[in-house]
């Protein structure tokens, strides 16, 4: 095992403290934080649950980059670079690296579903009584996209809008209702097409592309409605 110095933000002192942690090729930021909590700082606050990039709790900033602490490997940070671990800046901070995602979850419309039709082995036989295989969404609701977004005005943000776009895909017969939500003044029109959301997303959700598609669908609907209005007149 090699050793590495990592600097971790502490609320009590309002600055980073340095720690030495052991690491191998698999060690991630979350392992380093667990090591520090167990060996030196039992009160260190950070969020963690699944340890494999599925729950979305563990977002942090490492050298300014927004990542999942459980996936980002120490070995992937060049040895001549420091390792500086800080909380996600836009989240409601509750201590050290931990945040409360209440505001983030408030942006999601009430009945966004979390399962969808599986996209692999789509020609495979399905057991009797089942229409298709299903799976969870890729979006793990970690909030990295929202944190990375440069839009400073109050708006729904990339995660909630991406979830609305998924509903349009999943239930096209209800598209109108979802497009109405996205067409809100706090919705797609606030997007500046920076696409930092898509770059930072750890699970390939591509929120930027989805917001663009929502915008296009809203325009198309408006045109169709206008044309209908003209032909009615």
């Amino acid at each position, binding site marked *: 095992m090699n050793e590495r110095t990592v600097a971790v933000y502490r609320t009590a002192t309002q600055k980073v403290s340095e720690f030495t942690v052991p690491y191998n090729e698999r060690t991630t930021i979350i392992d380093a934080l667990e090591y520090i909590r167990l060996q030196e700082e039992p009160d260190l606050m950070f*969020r963690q649950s*699944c340890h494999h990039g599925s729950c979305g*709790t563990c977002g942090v900033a490492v050298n300014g980059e927004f990542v999942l602490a459980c996936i980002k490997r120490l070995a992937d940070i060049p040895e001549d670079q420091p390792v500086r671990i800080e909380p996600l800046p836009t989240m409601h901070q*509750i201590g050290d690296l931990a945040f409360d995602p209440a505001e*983030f979850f408030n942006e999601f419309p009430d009945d966004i579903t979390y399962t969808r039709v599986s996209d692999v082995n789509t020609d495979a036989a399905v057991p009797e009584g089942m229409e298709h*295989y299903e799976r969870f969404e890729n979006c793990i609701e970690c909030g990295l996209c929202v944190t990375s977004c440069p839009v400073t005005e109050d708006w729904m943000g990339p995660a909630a809008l991406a979830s609305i776009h998924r509903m349009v895909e999943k239930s096209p017969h209800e598209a109108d209702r979802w497009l109405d939500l996205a067409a809100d003044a706090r919705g797609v029109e606030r997007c500046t097409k920076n696409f930092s959301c898509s770059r930072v997303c750890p699970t390939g959700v591509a929120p930027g592309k989805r917001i663009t598609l929502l915008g296009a669908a809203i325009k198309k609907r408006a045109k169709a409605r206008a044309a209908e209005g003209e032909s009615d007149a």
Partner: protein
Amino acid sequence: MSNASDTHVVVVGGGGTGAAILYDLVQRGFKATLFERGELTCGSTGRHHGLLHSGARYVVKDREVGRECMDEVRILTRIAPEAIEANRGIFVAFDEEELAFRETFEQACAEADIPAQWLTSEQVLAMEPRLNPGLLGGVMVPDGTLDAYRLPMHFFAGARKLGAVIRNFTRVESLVFEGRRIAGVTVHDLRTGADETVKCDLVINATGGWAGRLAAMADIELPITPAPGTMLAHQGRLVNNIIERLRPASDGDILVPQRGLSIIGSTQWQTDDPDDCTVPDADVEFLTKAAIEMVPDFKETAYHKAWAAVRPLAGASSTEEEGRELSRDFDVRDHAKLDNVEGMLSLTGGKATTLRAMGEKTVDVVCDLFDVDTPCRTASEPLPNYRHFFRQGVLV
């Protein structure tokens, strides 16, 4: 008969077990407060393999455990459908020895009411084209994939909605005694750095692999050994159904698809320290090989993550005199009866799949203790979606 609302119960441990107990307590009218030293589900709960057990894995050894799992699968798919990829599980025979296990396995499933259907090798491959084509057939059962984090968060959402007090990042440091009776806990709030004493009528120790430590605060020796196990995730979903081996439960014999991942598990070793979950190199090698045996394409997929979770292994199995054996799978130990310490129950054993049942049976014991006569309703009422946990505002 007493009034549940006059009784304050403190639950220690914010994993799935604590979540389900808390929800059941407030639903039956008790006042309840939960303390979790880190973020909710940061123990074994968030980290487990994510298999929604139909019970088939356990049924040959124990029909009752199998039956209980199957009951819970039926209930959870009703009350928390968004936390489950409701596909199937296939126990595949990859060799003659496994094929020979078929009869024993099917018989046990039938006895425990677990729907099981034999599939020929052609049928298995039609459902799962990427399995090792040399396979000899398989038995399909109602296993599924559960979201290890979002399922318990559904329970927390329900508990919070009904007025439970939930305090994450708050560590229980010691137990407060009045004579031989535990009358409260002292806690350390990581947010503020402050220590405080919280009075209660009962403490429920739901700290999983750490249960021995909390019990030790009352000088009670709890016979459990922390035993971590490793899981390995590769990028790429290779199957839709859970793939298991048609043989008695062993290491490296379960492949769970979840989102875009294929996750193989697990192993088991023993430790003195439940917090020590460093993955041994040998486990990664072993699990990679085990996955390739079942699904050769696993070789072509990229490493995503290896991690471990801790099981609280029962050091000594309970008997009627020792504890109140609520299920063959988990125990609620009333320390008043066994250790001459009143005011605390400790939970040991169980599975993520049976969290609701553990909640129900534990709160049944609480009702008995306080002479409350309110039946459990958690099996019939749908849970609020996990997002509602957070949508109720910032936790303070």
